[in-house]
């Protein structure tokens, strides 16, 4: 039903014609759009701040020329970027100039999803939101409002809503991305790998990547260190169904059958144990349940894995021995986007255990111990207590979920269980592309009394909103401090570089004004963000003025490895590395990871895989005029033989149809290539936009999210495995 609704909506959109307002100048034919301090400003000035094009938060220096934003470069003092931003950060200039960015508060003017708006004042918009919130509170209690948020900018909105009484705040980055990895490592080592990940890539002498496509996936520090490792001759081992850029740097490329990584991991561990190549001292000092683990993996030989993975036993043995040769400086990378097949926590646990066998956790060239500077939180009054608790994971159905499950909130919104959810706030995350099966998201939206989107640009989820609140970009606002947990800790400031060009407001202002309208002034003892920041910084013995000049303050270089004096400690029940997990056993799960074969798709179909491009972040940058010039549509990667048999050539346009009959909204170009297995296709995520608010990106390429109608839920923590969809290619006449 909801799919049909979505389809009708789409047809209306395509028939609707021109967009909302006239385009402002794009980069190159600048500045129709007045920016900076206006025409009066002359000369060059620089402002230190930190980036927001992704969550890595590199420290940057922006340059303004004659009042107009010119460029953004890495801050040389920054331990994350070492003075070099990634292409997205460099292209962050375009976020300020983007003609498609939201300009004024919008109220929905017709049925949801039609994207017809009335422009209103901030007072009208926030009064409307506050009134709806009071109504929901009266009828259902404040727990009936939920927040979906991504990134540091959501801090103040979360504060306001918690003061109002919400209990449900989720980031799709848990159940749709890194959650299984974090839980798998928590179950094994007692803590996760964090963000930025505590991976010591620069000192690794052997680096193993499973589907992780560093270089296309542009997490700055990791890519810099990856290049350093490649340059210094480290052995790179890559298992990926696609010949990624990282694979092209590898000594060993393993063209693994999709969904069988756990079989490969078990076979690698089998070799290390059987041949006695693992770090016996490390395992006996820090391991728990090794004997039971070793017995459990005995049957999983390279010969056993061969028919599953397609990787020859000799290759498995050779790569396992290579890993052992360089241990403990062998890093089996935990990846980041880990929601693939629904057994993802167990796969991540196997990655953790392989690292444990190699003794890499806590060691140079493996996983270092990060540190953070002590910056006290602002002393707010306590939030109201709730009798109802959270709605995302009733009865701890997913017993090992360590954060709120976004799709659990969606489920509660659909079913009204354990209690009704009637209001959604969505901050800086395009839920229509972030959550699997958009039909369920649309069904949930039907049950809402209020859907508010706060963002810099439009999006598919903004198209469904009742109220859209336009935020200033990171280049025009203060945000909360970045107190970084890293091998070289620091505190960084984001501050305005130029003025916002229209009636956009910073998130802290939006959150505070909404709080005042809700009578929550007790939660905002500060009036300006500078006051808040200065208070926090003074608590740490620092000053706002200093950070305004320098951008960041560094906290030295604490010891980060066991060999430097870090004391090994594991927050697990056994206080050791859990090769065998009693908590998993007690909850009815495999105490040592076990492989199960992924379900095949319909005959003749190809598994749909997706990933990243270095010049875009999620589905949020496709209208950025600088980044769009670097890549303005995606392509579907099809194995050259498969394409030939289908009569398709590079550049031909096709639609993708999935196993449930859902067809991509737009035709996408074929990239017929040797660089992918014949049983799958690959799309870069974030394209195929259907929102007419995104004029530059509308209709360009295909959306993988639209085709992810099925997902397999991880029974341990509720993550949604999304690589379980299959497509056929339909040539466009």
């Amino acid at each position, binding site marked *: 039903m909801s799919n049909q609704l979505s389809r009708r909506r789409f047809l209306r959109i395509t028939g609707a014609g021109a967009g909302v307002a006239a385009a402002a100048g794009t*980069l190159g034919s600048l500045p129709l759009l007045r920016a900076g301090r206006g025409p009066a400003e002359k000369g060059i000035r620089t402002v230190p701040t930190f980036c927001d094009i992704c969550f890595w938060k590199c420290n940057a220096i922006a340059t303004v020329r004659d009042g107009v934003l010119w460029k953004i470069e890495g801050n040389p003092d920054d331990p994350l970027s070492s003075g070099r931003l990634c292409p997205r950060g460099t292209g962050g*200039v375009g976020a300020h100039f983007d003609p498609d960015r939201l300009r004024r508060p919008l109220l929905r003017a017709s049925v949801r999803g039609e994207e017809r708006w009335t422009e209103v004042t901030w007072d009208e918009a926030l009064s409307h939101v506050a009134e709806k919130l009071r109504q929901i509170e009266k009828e259902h209690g404040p727990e009936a409002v939920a927040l979906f948020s991504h990134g540091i900018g959501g801090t103040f909105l979360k504060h306001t809503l918690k003061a109002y009484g919400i209990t449900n705040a989720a980031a799709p980055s848990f159940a749709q991305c890194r959650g299984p990895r974090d839980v798998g490592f928590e179950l094994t080592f007692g803590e996760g790998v964090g963000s930025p990940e505590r991976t010591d890539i620069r000192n690794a002498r052997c680096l193993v990547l499973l589907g992780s496509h560093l270089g296309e996936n542009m997490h700055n520090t990791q890519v810099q260190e*990856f290049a350093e490792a490649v340059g210094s001759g480290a052995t790179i081992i890559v298992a990926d169904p696609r010949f990624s850029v990282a694979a092209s740097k590898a000594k060993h490329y393993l063209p693994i059958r999709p969904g069988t990584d756990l079989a490969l991991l078990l076979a690698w561990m089998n070799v290390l144990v059987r041949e006695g190549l693992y770090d016996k001292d490390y395992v006996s000092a820090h391991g728990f349940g090794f004997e039971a683990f070793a017995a459990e993996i005995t049957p999983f030989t390279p010969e056993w894995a061969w028919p599953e993975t397609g990787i020859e036993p000799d290759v498995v043995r050779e790569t396992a021995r290579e890993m052992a040769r360089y241990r403990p400086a062998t890093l089996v990378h935990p990846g980041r986007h880990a929601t693939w097949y629904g057994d993802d926590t167990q796969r991540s646990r196997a990655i953790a255990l392989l690292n444990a066998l190699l003794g890499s956790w806590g060691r140079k060239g493996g996983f270092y111990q990060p540190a953070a500077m002590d910056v006290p939180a602002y002393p707010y009054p306590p939030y109201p207590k709730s009798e109802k608790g959270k709605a995302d994971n009733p009865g701890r159905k997913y017993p090992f979920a360590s954060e709120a499950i976004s799709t659990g909130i969606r489920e509660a919104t659909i079913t009204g269980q354990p209690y009704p959810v009637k209001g959604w706030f969505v901050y800086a995350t395009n839920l229509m592309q972030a959550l699997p099966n958009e039909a369920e998201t649309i069904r949930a939206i039907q049950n809402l009394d209020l859907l508010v989107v706060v963002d810099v640009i439009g999006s598919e989820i903004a198209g469904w909103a009742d109220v859209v609140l336009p935020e200033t970009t990171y280049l025009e606002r203060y945000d909360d401090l970045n107190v970084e947990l890293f091998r070289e800790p620091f505190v960084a400031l984001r501050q305005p570089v130029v003025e916002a060009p229209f009636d956009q407001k910073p998130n802290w202002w939006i959150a505070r004004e909404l709080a005042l309208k809700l009578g929550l002034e007790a939660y905002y003892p500060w009036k300006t963000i500078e006051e808040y920041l200065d208070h926090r910084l003074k608590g740490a013995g620092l000053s706002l003025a200093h950070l305004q000049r320098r951008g960041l303050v560094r906290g030295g270089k604490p010891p980060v490895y066991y060999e430097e004096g870090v004391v090994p400690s594991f927050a697990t029940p056994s206080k050791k590395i859990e090769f065998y997990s009693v908590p998993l056993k007690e909850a009815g799960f495999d105490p040592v990871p076990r492989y199960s074969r992924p379900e095949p798709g319909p005959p003749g179909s190809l598994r749909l895989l997706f990933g990243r491009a270095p010049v875009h972040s999620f589905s949020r940058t496709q209208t950025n005029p600088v980044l769009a010039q670097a890549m303005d549509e995606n392509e579907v990667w099809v194995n050259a033989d498969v394409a030939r048999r289908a009569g398709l050539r590079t550049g031909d346009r096709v639609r993708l149809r999935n196993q449930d009959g859902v067809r991509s909204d737009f035709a996408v170009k074929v990239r017929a290539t040797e660089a992918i*297995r014949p049983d799958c296709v690959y799309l870069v995520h974030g394209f195929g936009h259907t929102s007419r608010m995104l004029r530059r990106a509308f209709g360009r390429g295909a959306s993988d999210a639209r085709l992810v109608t099925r997902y397999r839920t991880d029974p341990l923590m509720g993550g949604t495995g999304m690589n379980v969809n299959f497509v056929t290619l339909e040539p466009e006449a």
Partner: protein
Amino acid sequence: MARLGMVIDTRRCVGCMDCVVACKTENGTPEGMNRDWITSATRGRFPSLTLTLQSERCNHCDDPPCVTCCPTGASHVHDWGGVVLVTREECIGCKACLASCPYDARYVHPDGYADKCTFCIHRVEKGRDPACVSVCPTHCMHFGDLDDPESEVSRLLASRRHHSVLPEAGTRPRIFYLE
């Protein structure tokens, strides 16, 4: 006199296009026009493949046909570093240089003049690297004096196998790719 050139390590390059984006913001190149670009070549049969990624731009050739063919002298070799430049005011937009360049490195700016990579001479004169070099997150790009045997670029060329693009064109390009 210096002879400026670039040495690019293809082993480190991941083809992220940061050099392309940095050039665009640094130099404000027009929509859809670029002074540098990435080429990508996949060779072999799955799964025995190689991928070569190269950041390319004007080669600032020792024998630049774009300079000899220019009817007005707008295209010229700069006194310092031998950088090939275009004097906008003297360019009549005849496109002879576009046709003569074996690297297709030039385009006609919407304002009517031939435009291309300047090795960011405005930065180099202040002692900084070109924008593409200084932004590269993989540190795969190196810039300096090819005539100075002690320079980083000369030492890299002496120590590693390398190639240039279309050496058979005979223009003696000054960008080299380490293999």
